[in-house]
């Protein structure tokens, strides 16, 4: 009870094509994350699924029913917004129950669902408060609660964590993951943060410039990126791209190595270089090494590594884990 099919959806604002033909199938109960840089069309796609924006062409099907021209309220969806979008003049309870009241749900049923949702999100002490009296994290929980009480076929999240501070973001991320496990509902989540995407998703959809670059499980994208864009977008710090000509590699245009798949040694190795900058994070150390042969490389070392700017190091890639891309950016086998 919550599958979604997107069929050749295109969207143009005037002459600008924001979405250039999106095809996607989401199965019941899946947690799908749309990820991509800003302006890639991920929010527009979510708004088309929600019915807040009309597509220029193409169809949207929820549970097999064509909802392309159905108003948002009748699509069986609920949405959580980046800015929370709580009704400022209503209490938490009324915020959560407004949608149900609109469709004439009996009061007892509304009460039951609000109680259940507020218990799940530990919001009981705040039910009679107004949004202005709540902290950012609490507001976002209310917004999630408002979505939960609707018992929708599809949950839509539009960058819900962007307005929270770093510590709250991790907590709320965990709550959303638990919510998905408990409700087993289909969720679609938009973010520009690849960490959120990797941690939450069953399936990640990487979008770039109005096109889907790759769809797959987080580890598939990490291990087998289809192209240079996905390889660079997934993983932090970013993958190193080296001009293949410099390394004397024939067929490939670019060679990619993730920072964590490089090892360093003070005595010997493949590429000699100088440390430009070192970031000591405790659990890992990020080194920026200017190598003679391969240019500037980011190296991620697990644990503490004592290296200072200016020291000389040899960097060696793990040959099993280098990626090769052709002139169009496509990954070569």
């Amino acid at each position, binding site marked *: 009870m919550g599958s979604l099919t997107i069929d050749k959806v295109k969207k143009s604002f005037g002459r600008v094509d924001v979405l250039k033909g999106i095809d996607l199938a989401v199965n019941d109960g899946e947690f799908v994350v749309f990820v991509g840089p800003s302006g890639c069309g991920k929010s527009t796609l979510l708004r088309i699924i929600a019915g807040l924006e009309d597509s220029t062409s193409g169809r949207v099907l929820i549970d097999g029913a064509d909802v392309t021209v159905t108003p*948002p*309220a009748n699509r069986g*969806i609920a949405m959580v917004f*980046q800015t929370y*979008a709580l*009704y400022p003049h209503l209490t938490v309870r009324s915020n959560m129950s407004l949608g149900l009241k*609109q*469709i004439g749900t009996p009061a007892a049923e509304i009460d039951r669902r609000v109680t259940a949702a507020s218990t799940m999100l530990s919001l009981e002490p705040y039910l009679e408060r107004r949004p202005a009296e709540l902290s950012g994290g609490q507001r976002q929980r209310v917004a999630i609660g408002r979505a939960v009480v609707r018992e929708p076929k599809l949950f839509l999240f539009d960058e819900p964590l962007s307005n929270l501070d770093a510590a709250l973001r991790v907590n709320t991320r965990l709550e959303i993951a638990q919510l998905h496990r408990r409700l087993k509902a289909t969720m679609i989540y938009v973010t520009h943060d690849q960490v959120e995407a990797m941690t939450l998703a069953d399936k990640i959809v990487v979008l770039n410039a109005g096109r889907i670059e790759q769809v797959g499980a987080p580890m598939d994208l990490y291990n087998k990126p289809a192209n240079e864009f996905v390889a660079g977008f997934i993983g932090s710090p970013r993958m190193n791209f080296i001009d293949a000509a410099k390394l004397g590699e024939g067929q490939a245009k670019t060679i990619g190595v993730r920072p964590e798949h490089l090892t360093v040694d003070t005595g010997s190795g493949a590429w000699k270089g100088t440390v430009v900058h070192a970031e000591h994070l405790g659990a890992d150390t990020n080194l920026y090494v200017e190598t003679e042969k391969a240019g500037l490389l980011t190296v991620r070392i697990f644990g503490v590594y004592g290296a200072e700017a200016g020291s000389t190091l040899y960097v060696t890639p793990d040959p099993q884990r280098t990626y090769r891309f052709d002139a169009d950016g496509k990954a070569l086998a």
Partner: protein
Amino acid sequence: MSRATASLPRTVGAHAALLAYTAIALFPVVVIVINSFKSRNAIFRTPLSPPTSETFDLIGYTMVLNQGDFFLYFQNSLIVTVASLFLVLLFGAMAAFALSEYRFRGNTLMGLYLALGIMIPIRLGTVAILQLMVASGLVNTLTALVLVYTAQGLPLAVFILSEFMKQVSDDLKNAGRIDGLSEYRIFFRLVLPLVRPSMATVAVFTMIPIWNDLWFPLILAPSEATKTITLGAQLFIGQYVTNWNAVLAALSLAILPVLVLYLIFSRQLIRGITSGAVK
């Protein structure tokens, strides 16, 4: 008390300027009010002195209040002002919402067209308006005044309110749409409460010229039954003899209702002016 943000000379200077302006702004009003409590001789002999026990006289007020129709004039003014204000705010806000919320062909042109009225005084069209009112049989009705004042107030209202409506979060409106609220409910329940301070600002700017207007009541509704207070007060100003006691009393009384309305809106108004300055 010394603070980093204020120096004594600067504070004194600022207060001197503000007090001077206050004195200039209040002077005519104070003169009207104090003279309305004095006898006719005292008004001319010592116009600037407050009423003393000898010069104190309520003759102006008794004259005004005994001139039976005065309450009717008051009532007419109130009806016209409140009705026009209501219509200006309602239609102005609705037009502003449409202009700021919906993307449609000619949106900008329509906005400019609606704002054009700010630059063209409505009085230029007096003759045409009079002909229109005669043709539709509305001369000497309060409806005529309400219609004209609504038209007069709308351009500024649309202009100011659409700027404020653009600032209302899209997410909030979309949340309403997903919860199944109609566009009207979104407008009345979600957007209007959020732009309330700017509505108050528009209300004050709209209300005062309407209340004080002499032109249209004189031309469109001069009959005894439809006179407004400003027109009614002219009754006491003759070509040769002016009943100053009555004129001043009438003007003093005319200040009151608009003052009350202003106080109602002013709390909101201050928030309107400072909104956006602090989050």
